[in-house]
């Protein structure tokens, strides 16, 4: 009952409202509202998402093969480094790339090498791919661990296959489900991406579906604009559902693994360290340098001055934290704490209830809410609850819960799946009652997972931009929205200062998650 109620309130009512409005106006009206710019936005979105999926899966799979196949010394830090972009806010990364490699960025100032294409499709694809790579990496690494065990490759090597041959005939076929899952996750994330296209696409006049929705909803006075928003929102849902369906179909044909536990990993004695060096260089160029550029910009008195200590100042931070942004900061933290707590409680409740009845429904619900894009959700929630919650934090909280409850649910659900019922039986036959068995055996296993899930929801709520930018009103702005607004006003140093603050906040919360690597891995497990 509770599950059903939660689903109805969180997902069903808004989506029904969306479809209801669309059909009440008559689908003709919605279809007619679609203009050239909208169809171009759909084409742009598809192109960007496809390219990003390909790049991110290629890069993520390569990185996973490098870090997971051999027990390199210090591998742990490399894994952490790979996961960092996943947890930093995407639009902050975009701003960082602009400051690092864009016109009048770090490399432009220092070496005269600036990348003007950063504003536009190429820049969007690259930054999104860098940002989505950890997602693909996590999925492929999990696939390597559970499906393509080392002994399977070893069996092929002693059968006479060279390492390249074995990669093509054994490893990649075994990884196929993981590669497809990774590609679909990245595709859906890229279709839904708003922050990066907003920062890099809007100035170049390159629109995607999400930025069109944002512009139509926030700035357009055109009466057809709202119909257009609804049409675009529906397009996003269709794209996401089709992609998820592809993943579900391909997953069904996956070969079933058998046999005992995998063989041990081998130490990387006598192996070339070149892949590690390349991976490290990649991380420095794509993650460290943009973040560094952001920090330097935040510290420098004005754009154009060289970022040397003589020109450093903390004034930008003072300017960044005015009454409005500090209110936004408090809003963000309150929203994130409440959303994280509710998402984990809800997730725990659902896990307990679903376990009692068999969890057929659970994965389906999780998939649906994951697939519905943030922009669409925001529009749907606006339609369903906007009448009485408009411009309140509660409206944004509902949006966060709908979008992020999966992050609270999935780690809990998968650790529940992995908890053998024998553990409970053993406790009961040892004389523990139902309650004390739960407290002494089940809870200790769930506590770290629940903590990781909480932090995860907290982080994503903290840097959520897509929905917040569509739902905020006077007094209910969040920090991410404040950064975006500042950025669009065009004050790079103050924007950078605020972005640094936000990133520091996120990374501080992220460190425990990164240390719980196992639980962090669960997120990507489709």
């Amino acid at each position, binding site marked *: 009952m509770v599950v059903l109620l939660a689903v109805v309130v969180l997902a069903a009512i808004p989506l029904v409202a969306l479809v209801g409005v669309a059909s009440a106006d008559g689908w003709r009206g919605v279809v007619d509202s679609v203009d050239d710019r909208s169809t171009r936005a759909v084409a742009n979105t598809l192109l960007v998402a496809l390219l990003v999926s390909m790049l991110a899966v290629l890069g993520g799979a390569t990185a996973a093969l490098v870090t997971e196949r051999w027990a390199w010394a210090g591998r742990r830090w490399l894994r952490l480094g790979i996961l960092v972009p996943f947890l930093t806010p995407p639009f902050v990364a975009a701003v960082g790339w602009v400051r690092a490699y864009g016109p009048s960025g770090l490399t432009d100032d220092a070496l005269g090498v600036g990348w003007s294409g950063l504003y536009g499709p190429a820049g969007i694809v690259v930054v999104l791919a860098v940002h989505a790579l950890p997602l693909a990496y996590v999925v492929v690494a999990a696939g390597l661990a559970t499906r393509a065990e080392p002994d399977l490759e070893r069996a092929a090597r002693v059968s006479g296959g060279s390492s390249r041959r074995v990669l093509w005939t054994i490893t990649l076929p075994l990884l196929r489900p993981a590669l497809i899952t990774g590609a679909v996750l990245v595709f859906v994330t890229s279709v839904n991406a708003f922050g990066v296209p907003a920062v890099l696409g809007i100035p170049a006049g390159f629109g995607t579906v999400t930025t069109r929705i944002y512009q139509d909803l926030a700035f357009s006075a055109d009466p057809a604009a709202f119909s257009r928003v609804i049409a675009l929102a529906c397009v996003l849902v269709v794209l996401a559902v089709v992609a998820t369906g592809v993943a579900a179909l391909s997953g069904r044909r996956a070969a079933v693994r*058998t046999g005992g536990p995998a063989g041990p990993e081998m130490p990387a004695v006598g192996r070339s360290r070149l892949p590690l060096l390349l991976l490290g260089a990649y991380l420095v160029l794509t993650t460290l340098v943009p973040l560094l550029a952001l920090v330097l910009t935040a510290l420098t008195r004005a754009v154009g001055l060289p970022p040397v200590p003589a020109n450093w100042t903390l004034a930008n931070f003072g300017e960044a934290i005015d009454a409005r942004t500090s209110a936004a900061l408090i809003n963000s933290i309150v929203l994130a704490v409440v959303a994280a707590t509710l998402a984990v409680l809800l997730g725990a409740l659902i896990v307990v209830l679903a376990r009692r009845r068999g969890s057929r429904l659970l994965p389906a619900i999780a998939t649906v809410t994951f697939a519905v894009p943030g922009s669409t959700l925001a529009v749907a929630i606006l339609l369903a609850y906007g009448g009485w919650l408009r411009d309140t934090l509660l409206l944004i909280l509902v949006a966060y819960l709908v979008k992020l409850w999966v992050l609270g649910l999935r780690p809990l659900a998968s650790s529940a799946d992995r908890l053998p019922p024998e553990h409970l039986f053993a406790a009961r036959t040892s004389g523990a009652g139902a309650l004390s068995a739960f407290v002494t055996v089940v809870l200790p296993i769930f506590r770290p997972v629940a903590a990781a899930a909480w932090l995860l929801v907290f982080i994503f709520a903290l840097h959520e931009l897509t929905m917040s930018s569509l739902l905020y009103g006077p007094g209910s702005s969040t920090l991410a929205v404040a950064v975006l607004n500042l950025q669009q006003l065009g004050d790079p140093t103050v924007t950078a200062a605020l972005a640094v603050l936000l990133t520091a906040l996120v990374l501080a919360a992220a460190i425990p998650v990164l240390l719980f690597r196992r639980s962090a891995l669960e997120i990507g497990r489709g």
Partner: protein
Amino acid sequence: MREGASVPGGEGAGSVPALECRDVTLSYGPVPVVHDLTLAVAAGETVALLGPSGSGKSSLLYAIAGFLRPLSGSITIAGRVVSAQRDWLPPEHRSIGMVFQNYALWPHMTAVETVAYPLRRAGMPRTEARRRAQDLLESLGIGRLAERRPAELSGGEQQRVGLCRALARDPELYLFDEPTAHLDSALRADLQEHLSGRRQGSRAAALYATHDVAEALAVADRVALLRDGRIVQIGPPVEIYERPIDLWAARLTGAASLLSVTVERRQGSRSTVAVAGVSLDVAVDAPGDVIGPGTSHGDGRRSSSQDGHGGALSAGRTALVRPGWLRFGGPLTGTVLGAWYRGPHTDYRLDTATGEVALAEAGPPRFAAGEEICWSLDRLWFLPEVASEASAASDSDAP
């Protein structure tokens, strides 16, 4: 310098050994798992690596196959150096067929595709490879399962496919990494028969890692006992069972009891010994016949035992007896502590004047716990280790 130590004289001196490991040290981290191990397997010979989990069996196989690079030492397969300080041959270029503990069957391939895989890699055309693979599957009695994937096969069937894949490689050396560990006893016996039969047919050598004593003694021409990455003892199965080099080796290879005895008179291979004050005529093996591992402490042990009889004869010594060397009826007395019916035989535990001993007798139980019985023994074995432990004890007393 140490060549002779690990290779028994049985094989022809002219033939090239299928495998030679020389001073091989392996490690996954700071602590080595195999220390300076030297081992040779003659052409056509099967050597069992017997040891508890963590003794380094699998690591050694992985190093021979080429998955784990030794820190030092060299490995030669059929006269070809595959691993040395500079040279290192990748697994696909070593003449090896391997059977894995977890089967390691590729979930996306059918049985016949799996067995054809090594043939294809060797350059055989697709149709011919499939036909040969089908023949191999038929010869192991699973031809009808050719089109099934691993998930549709039982454990025993999966391991037979794994065996076919290794056979398809037609290598100089087979590596078996506890191939029957996940099988129940009936399947295990069945697979062992296939292994021995196939190996005799192919004349290839084999290294067979296992932690199952009965399996090691049954399949091998020689058994090597592995402890903490070192070979403690190596020799033919009968010798390994009847003449363990120390108490650890004795316990690893089966039940054994210790008796305090005094040797009264020695004549050839038979001696008169006193057990709990009663004189018995028994067969006594001299420890000098034991072939040590030839690594750290082989030579010293051998010389000390050869001429050590005079001193050892007089004093009270600890002797080792296997359950089968004891029998009911005779001059000694005791009380049955427990009897365990095993099917072919019955195991007893007896309380005697010289301590608790284990006795095994064919057939169902004849005595129950608490019954007074008479017993005797036919043979015993003086552990070389006991003598050296005594000398080690006196050494440590000195300073």
